[in-house]
Structures are given as structure tokens and as C-alpha cells.
């Protein structure tokens, strides 16, 4: 099918990999996933929604096809007629070469953007099944190497990109000094716990300063904490369920430790999905604090009048980060903020829930061998934004921003992506 050689972690016999893949997949399985698995009618319409299929025309990128080995395993091991499937040999056992072949499909060509779930006439949440399938792949040691390495580093060091607590502390101190702004760190008690993504700590440090300035502006009682600051979750992206939990628990414990009523997530997409929607399930109880994406926090602050903004006389178009907008439900918050900024909003087509993914989410931007595919997808975004005629492309996810920056460099595009957070910070009416 493809010439890509799969990455393998660990030394294990093929049979063991298959067994572990099946274990990983079925362990967290349930009624919902079973209903989805039973419902596919092979209509192929999900392909029409997927940017990877859209830009290549290659049928193997059909979303439901990406989970085919797991559908096979489900029917054989767990479905209502599983014993018959096994006894009569109606579904073959998944093989290791099959799983290796599928690594490319499950990771390189899926950003878990959820457009397919939105399209499916049967209502199957295909994107959700991809995440379930990744559990199997991670257990079997079949994760693309950069993604696996980042996840391992994140679990071990506290950050996938080397922004360890030590590095984080140093950065905060340096930024506070450089920009002459107070950045509270490790306060014993605070109403608001703010978190960041390693991309911001290592690359878009202006976002950290922006956050500090805005928190001061609205008069928030807030802090960062070195025992819980990393909002990205490479456990989630790679499919390692245990690491996903570990990473989420750090944030949760830190919020509880300082008695925070609100936990603010940074401009990061999957961080929102990980904590806002999956956090409580990792914790095993409802969370004792609210979880807000920074764009939601900004929208609330604008509504309450706490956020006073200068009018920005420019036209803008908003790129919806998939995990916040389509999958997460915070579609309007960024638009409320843009309205508060007074920009002329020129929506791209499609937009909001049906907007095209930037192509870098779900861990794809970390996978080197997926670059060529990702650039093809990026063309869709460039055309979308060019067509609006807007001056400022804006988004609220650092991974999207990183993808846009990389795409811009590759294509020598004449437009740069802007961070909503930084735009707000740049236009505060200071007292």
C-alpha cells in the first residue's frame, strides 16, 4: 500500500504486538464505540470531508478505512456475533504487518479534526474511534518515532520540547525581567491557575507575556505553577492512555493544590479536549474547578467589561482550531473577542464547525515523513484565507500557528498567522 516503513518501539515478537494492540484497543472500549463500529455502511462519504483525501484523491485516506484493523478486531473479539466470526473464520485476526501498514494512516494522515464525524450519515464519531485505535498502536509500540519520543520526553521530563520545570522557571524569570511585568509563579493560593503549551514556552514566548498582561489588566488573582503548567498532552496524541492520564493529573493536582476555581488553558487545541472534556474522566470525579480555554476566558472578560480594548481597524478572518471549535464547542468565544477588538470579520468558507483543519494537529506536525502530505493540505488553508481578502488571519492554537508558520515558509506565502491572545494583549487600554 505505501512505501513508508513503520516505526517500532521496543523488541517484541509480532504476535505479542498484535495481542497488545488488541488489548489496548479493547481495554477502554465501550457501548458507544461498539454502536459506532456496528453502524458503518461503507458509503465512503467520510472521504469527502477529509482534507487528506481531498488533496490526494487517494482512497486509503478514507477516514473509516483508517480504523479498519480495529473494526476487524472488534467484530472478531467483542461484537455480538464474535464467537461466530472466530469459529467460522469470517474475520481474520489482525496481523502485525497490517498494523505497521496502518501506522501511516492512523498518525501521518489524521489530525483527529472530526470533519468526518460531522459528515457521516450514520453519525459515527470516526475521529473518536481514531483516538481509541491509537491506544492499541501505542501499546503495541507502533507509534511514529517523533511522536513517541515527544510523548516519552513529556512523561519523563514534564515537557515534550525540553521545557522542563527548571527551564520553565528560568524563562518566566527572564520574561518578567525583560518585559518588566510581574509573572506570579508557584503561589500557594490563587483563584485562577494558568497553563501553557511548550510551543509557547520555547517559541512563542510573547504569548506568555500577553497572558500575564491580560491577567493583570482584568485584575485576576492568578498564578503559574511549576508542578502543573504543561497543557499539551502527547500521551493523548500518541495514544498512550497511561501517560495521557499522568499529564492531565499534573494540571489537576496543581489546580487543587492552589485551590483554583478556574483553570485557564493556553492557545492549544488538543489541550482543550484533554482537560475540558477528558480531564474529569481521568480524575475519576467531576473536577472541582472550571476549565476555560483562554479564548473563552477573554470572551467572558469582554462580556463582563473587565477587558477594555482599543479598536483595531483591520479586517480579520478566523481559523477555527478543530479541538476548540468543532470538537470542543467554543466556536463563538474567539469571535466575541474579535468583535470586542472591533475588527471587520470576514469569515472564510467553510467556517466554524465545518472549517478545514490546518493539517498539523493530532501530532501530525511532529512527524517528519508526513511533511509533504501536510503541505498539500496547507494549500487548502492558503486558498481559503486568500479568498476572504482579509488582512489578518487569526487563530487561537499555537500548534495551528506553528503549522501556518511552517507552511508560510515553505510556500513563501505573503500572510502570517496571528495569535488572538497576542492581538488582545497588544490592544489593551491600559489604565
Amino acid at each position, binding site marked *: 500500500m505505501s512505501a513508508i516503513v513503520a516505526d517500532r518501539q521496543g523488541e517484541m515478537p509480532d504476535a505479542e504486538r498484535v495481542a497488545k494492540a488488541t*488489548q489496548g484497543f*479493547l*481495554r477502554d472500549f465501550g457501548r458507544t464505540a461498539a454502536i459506532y463500529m456496528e453502524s458503518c455502511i461503507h458509503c465512503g462519504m467520510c472521504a469527502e470531508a477529509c482534507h487528506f483525501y481531498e488533496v490526494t484523491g487517494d482512497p486509503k485516506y478514507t477516514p473509516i478505512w483508517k480504523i479498519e484493523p480495529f473494526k476487524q478486531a472488534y467484530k472478531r*473479539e*467483542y461484537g*455480538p*456475533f*464474535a464467537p461466530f466470526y472466530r469459529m467460522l473464520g469470517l474475520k481474520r485476526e489482525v496481523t502485525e504487518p497490517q498494523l505497521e501498514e496502518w501506522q501511516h494512516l492512523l498518525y501521518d494522515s489524521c489530525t483527529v479534526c472530526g470533519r468526518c464525524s460531522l459528515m457521516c450519515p450514520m453519525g459515527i464519531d470516526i475521529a473518536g474511534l481514531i483516538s481509541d485505535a491509537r491506544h492499541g498502536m501505542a501499546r503495541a509500540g507502533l507509534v511514529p518515532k517523533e511522536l513517541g519520543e515527544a510523548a516519552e520526553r513529556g512523561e519523563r521530563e514534564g515537557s515534550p520540547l525540553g521545557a522542563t520545570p527548571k527551564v520553565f522557571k528560568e524563562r518566566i524569570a527572564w520574561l518578567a525581567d525583560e518585559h518588566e511585568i510581574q509573572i506570579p509563579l508557584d503561589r500557594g493560593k490563587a483563584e485562577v491557575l494558568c497553563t501553557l503549551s511548550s510551543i509557547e514556552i520555547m517559541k512563542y514566548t510573547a504569548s506568555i507575556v500577553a497572558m500575564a498582561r491580560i491577567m493583570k489588566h482584568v485584575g485576576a488573582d492568578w498564578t503559574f505553577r511549576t508542578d502543573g503548567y504543561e497543557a499539551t498532552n502527547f500521551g493523548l496524541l500518541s495514544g498512550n492512555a497511561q501517560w495521557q492520564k499522568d499529564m492531565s493529573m499534573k494540571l489537576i493536582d496543581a489546580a487543587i493544590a492552589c485551590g483554583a476555581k478556574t483553570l485557564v488553558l493556553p492557545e492549544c487545541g488538543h489541550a482543550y479536549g484533554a482537560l475540558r472534556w477528558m480531564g474529569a474522566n481521568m480524575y475519576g470525579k467531576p473536577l472541582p474547578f472550571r476549565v476555560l480555554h483562554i479564548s473563552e476566558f477573554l470572551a467572558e472578560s469582554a462580556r463582563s467589561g473587565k477587558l477594555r480594548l482599543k479598536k483595531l481597524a483591520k479586517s480579520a478572518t478566523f481559523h477555527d482550531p478543530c479541538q476548540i471549535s468543532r470538537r470542543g464547542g467554543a466556536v463563538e468565544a474567539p469571535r466575541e473577542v474579535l468583535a470586542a477588538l472591533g475588527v471587520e470579520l470576514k469569515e472564510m468558507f467553510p467556517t466554524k464547525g465545518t472549517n478545514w483543519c490546518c493539517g498539523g494537529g493530532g501530532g501530525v506536525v511532529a512527524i517528519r515523513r508526513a511533511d509533504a502530505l501536510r503541505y498539500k493540505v496547507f494549500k487548502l488553508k492558503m486558498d481559503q484565507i486568500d479568498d476572504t481578502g482579509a488582512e489578518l488571519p487569526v487563530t487561537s492554537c499555537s500548534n495551528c500557528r506553528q503549522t501556518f508558520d511552517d507552511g508560510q515558509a515553505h510556500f513563501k506565502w505573503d500572510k502570517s498567522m496571528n495569535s488572538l491572545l497576542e492581538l488582545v494583549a497588544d490592544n489593551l487600554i491600559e489604565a
Partner: protein
Amino acid sequence: MTTLGDSLLASGVSRRAFLKFCTALTSLMALPPGMAPAVAQALARAKRPSVIWLSFQECTGCTESLTRSTSPTLENLILDLVSLDYHHTLQAASGFAAEAAREHAMKEFDGKYLLLVDGSIPTSDGGIYGTWGGESFVDILQQSAKGAAAVVAIGSCASFGGLPKANPNPTGARPVSDLVKDKPVINVPGCPPIAVVMTGVLAHYLTFGRIPELDAQGRPLAFYGETIHDRCYRRPFYDQGKFAKTFDDEGARSGWCLYELGCKGPITHNACATVKWNAGTSFPIQSGHGCLGCSEPDFWDKGSFYKALSTAEWGDAKTLGVAAAVGVAAGAAAAYLGRRRQDRIGKED
């Protein structure tokens, strides 16, 4: 044996009347009209054959149908033209004398007589449920068939088993063709058969000296080749979707199709819709009652006469209830096994 032609002349039937009869007979047998003279010639020359009529588990309805008339009819002519040497209802003799007449005819016309049978034959318990003169019907039939030129099973009982064979068939009733294997058997079903169909079959045999073309059920194609539905005058209403819902509603009064009231016309082969009954007076559908399907095998056991053809025997509520319980139990068991497998996989970590 004198010829039929001689007998006719002797009984005062004019040549003209005879030719009229033969023309009608020709068309009845679905032969080309040009064949009428040939039919006339053949019939005139035919030897007056011996006919032995055996009545077994029957209601005498077939005989009633055949003899129903108030004026000379084709049916009567035929009965007069054959030498009916044995018939329980119509013969004058009885008891040992009647049996002696039968045995005599069988001996004298060995290999040439026509054996007509109405009623089914009970076979259970050594055939004791039907006997006369101390002999079982089974034995009588088998003995009588030995020397017959051909056997005609008159009516649905003789052709397919009829009412006696209906569930639970306590006497082990069976049709003639089940017991007579080495002679040609013509089935003339109907409950009863149309008079002129019976005589038409006989006439064909008399004319051509061989049995007519039969369908897969052994029925003469000339009379049983089409379904009632295909010739029903109410067919346009079926096609238009105009169905009577009760026996006296507006639709019924307007002569609409009787499908919903249980008419089995679509699957019943007979000549009722064209030839009709009582010299072409009417037939069940014309009188407002659906066809019972009485010329088809086992029509007594094919569901209610008043339930539409499409309401098949799908079982009953109780069976479906049991099926539902089985399905629920199996599904629950499958889910339980699935959960257990999941737990086991979880423990393996």
C-alpha cells in the same frame, strides 16, 4: 360395444345437435375451431366405452355437480353416451349385485375401461377407515386400476386428498395418484369440479383415445392452464387498487376486487372465471365471495379463506414472543461475554 354415433341416433339426437355439441366441445378443449369436424367424426366412430366409477371418501358433490341440470345438457349427453357400468349413486343395483356388475365389466373390457374415482382413499391402520363389501378402498382401487386404460381422479379429494386429508388427516387419506403409479392418471380437481370440465375431459379421451395435455399437477391444461385471477372480470379493480373491505360495504356492492376478503384467485388454476357454473350463470367471485382455491392441492390447510393471500403463515405471536426472548437472552449473553473478555484483558496488564 356400439358406437357413440349409433347410440346418439338411437336416442333421437339429431345430426345437427350432435355437431353443435362437438363444436362447443372443441372450443371447450381449447382446440382450433377447424377441428370441430374431426372431433365430430372421431366421436361418432368412438366405441361406447365402459366406465367404472369408484366413490371413496367423498361427499358425492362431484356427482351432484355433474348431474345438476333441469334440461338435457352436454353433461347428460356424455353420461348417456358412455356405458356407466358402476356408480354408487346413479346405479340401480346394490350390494353383491352391484359388485358382480363391476367385476363383470372389468373382466369383459379388461385393458379398455375407463376408471373414474371420486373421494380420497384412507390408508391408515390397514385402510380400515374405508371399506365396502369387506374390502378396503385401497385394495378396491388397486384391483380396479389393474385393467383400466386410464384413471380419472374426479374432484379435489381424489386428485389431491381434499377435505379428508386436511390437518390432522386422521384416516391417512391420500389421493389416487399416490396409490396408482402404473397407469395414466388425470386429475380433475375442484370442490366440486365444474360439470362441463369433467365432461370435457371425458370427451377428449373419447375423441382422441388418449389423455389430454396435463400440467405439473396432472390437470388438463385446457381447463386448468390459467388462474382465476388472469380471467377474472374484476381484475381492473385489483389493478386500480379498489378492494372491498367487508362483504357488504360500498366496495363490495360496487363489485370491487375481493383480495382483501381472502380471494385466492391469483394462485388458483381452474376455468371458473371463463366457463363459470350452472351453464355459465355465475361463479363465486361474481356472487361476491372470494375464490377458495379449491382446485389446488391442500387448499384446506393454506390458511383462512377470509384472510388475504399475502397474509402468509408466519407463525404466531407466541412463537415470535419466544423468539424475542431468545434474542434478548442471546444478546445479553454476548454482551456479558464481551464484558468478561474486556475484564480479562484489563487484568492481563
